[in-house]
């Protein structure tokens, strides 16, 4: 039988031992004890982020973001000549986005091969970034955005959006604005902004039984929402409330991202000494 030696071959079906834990013994972060579990963070607080630009030397632009234990790295290649010549749309550049989750990034081991879920994430990233990039300035070319999620401790897609736009800006791609991402989880009446993995996958049913997750991408300078994705059960009112909370979260992180970009520009081209 031909065996692929590059990949670890486990049994056809294997399960994480966590599944066999007696139910209830798993540590659950309920909405009430957020303050005790996660420093002094309130429900509407986002995690402090650490962001740096220009760490991948081979890429035109790159960025790294850390929020709590969520770690995302992104590199941007291009603009370069587009590969496919049969495209009718040659007046504008083409943006390509690729999101990958490292196999060890989640609790459950993932696959190296990109699955349907990752393709869906890539599409969300692409649609969130595209309104922010001046693609008409790059005719006949393509810009590739590669995101790698190193560790998933919740809200990784939102941070991937922020990280990707940082990398695009670092690559010198012309943009209208930095696209910021923010996620929220709603369980019952409580909105948890920028949830951790434990909060995202909290299995304790809330009294009303309604749970939902929301990811939003915003361009703060223009107040335009470029990406929105929500799933679960929610009322229209609570959905609007969660979306507003996410937008606030984006505004909170905006100065941090601006500082990071300023720092990287200063490093690349130090101001003339006078």
């Amino acid at each position, binding site marked *: 039988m031909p065996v692929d030696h590059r990949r670890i071959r486990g049994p056809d079906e294997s399960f994480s031992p966590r599944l066999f834990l007696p139910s209830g013994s798993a540590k659950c972060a309920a909405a009430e004890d957020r303050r005790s579990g996660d420093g002094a963070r309130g429900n509407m607080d986002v995690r402090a982020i650490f962001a740096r630009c220009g760490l991948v030397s081979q890429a035109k632009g790159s960025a790294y973001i850390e929020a709590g234990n969520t770690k995302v790295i992104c590199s941007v290649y291009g603009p370069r000549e587009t590969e496919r010549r049969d495209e009718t749309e040659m007046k504008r550049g083409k943006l390509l986005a690729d999101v990958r989750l490292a196999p060890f990034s989640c609790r459950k081991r993932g696959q190296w091969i990109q699955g349907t879920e990752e393709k869906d994430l890539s599409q969300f990233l692409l649609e969130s970034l595209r309104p922010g990039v001046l693609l008409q300035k790059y005719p006949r070319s393509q810009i590739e955005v590669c995101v790698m999620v190193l560790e998933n401790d919740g809200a990784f897609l939102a941070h991937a959006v922020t990280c990707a736009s940082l990398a695009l800006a670092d690559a010198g791609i012309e943009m209208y604005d930095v696209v910021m991402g923010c996620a929220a989880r709603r369980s019952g009446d409580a909105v948890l902004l920028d949830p951790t993995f434990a909060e995202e996958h909290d299995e304790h049913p809330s009294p009303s039984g309604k749970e939902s997750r929301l990811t939003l991408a915003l361009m703060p300078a223009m107040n335009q*929402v470029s990406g929105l994705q929500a799933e679960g059960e929610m009322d229209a009112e609570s959905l609007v409330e969660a979306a507003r909370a996410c937008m606030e979260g984006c505004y909170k992180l905006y100065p941090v991202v601006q500082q990071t970009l300023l720092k990287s520009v200063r490093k690349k081209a130090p101001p003339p000494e006078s």
Partner: protein
Amino acid sequence: MATVQVSEAEKVYILHGVRDDLRVDGRGCEDYRHMDIETDVVSNTDGSAKVSLGYSDVLVGVKAEVGKPRPALPDQGYLEFFVDCSANATPEFEGRGGEELGLELSNTLYKVFSNKQSVDLHSLCISPGEHCWVLYVDVLLLQCDGNLFDAISIAIKAALFNTRIPKVHLSEDEEGGKEIELSDDPYDCVRLNVENVPCIVTLCKIGHRHVVDATLQEKACSVASLLIATTHRGTVTCVRKFGGGSLDPESIFEMIETGKRVGKALHTPLMELLKEEESLGKKRQKVGFLG
């Protein structure tokens, strides 16, 4: 996606029409096109439905198979969605051309159904941790004329309404081995409760307004659309933005309101229609694919 080329003059015409709440085919901004629904169209499935919305044609077949429950959810069955874009619809879908659209559609369907309310997954469990019903929902696009999401969701609701799962019971022998026994009577079956199955409403932003059920021409004039899945009670189960443009927050909130209102209004006549069709029984005149 299947697209059409629209000239600048046509765009202006459509934009101005939408501004005055009069669309190219005479509809208002919140009106659907004429819709035909027929269930039980494919005899080899456990439930099927065909929906045509304008010139968009969708066929959905549901097949129930016995499978193993997911290890994380041992006492639940599950649904699998697959959307096939047939090359009949447009030549662009030939070969692997329809794959991307099919993946986008099926991924969205998973999201729409990823809650505890839509379908009672516990009722699909046969024996916890060992056997459960897996419902394979296969969607086939026969014609594309815009607004595929809405047509697909209506067809899925109709097909699930039509789905009959054979009754089984578990017998245990002396050694503790379990065996599944299928009922002898083919009419002895379980029905799904589809009351809470959501319908998708896609709203296209055209100019400063948004329209329901956009045709391909109208879609070409819009830069962004918002998909909203609602149940008959108005609970939203999925929201997603599609398209290359961005939306301002206020218009998103407006669109959610509209989507909820239109979605709620869509459910009641749909359920009535399905029940009426079923009550006709064998007397019903089958239309099939030539209608």
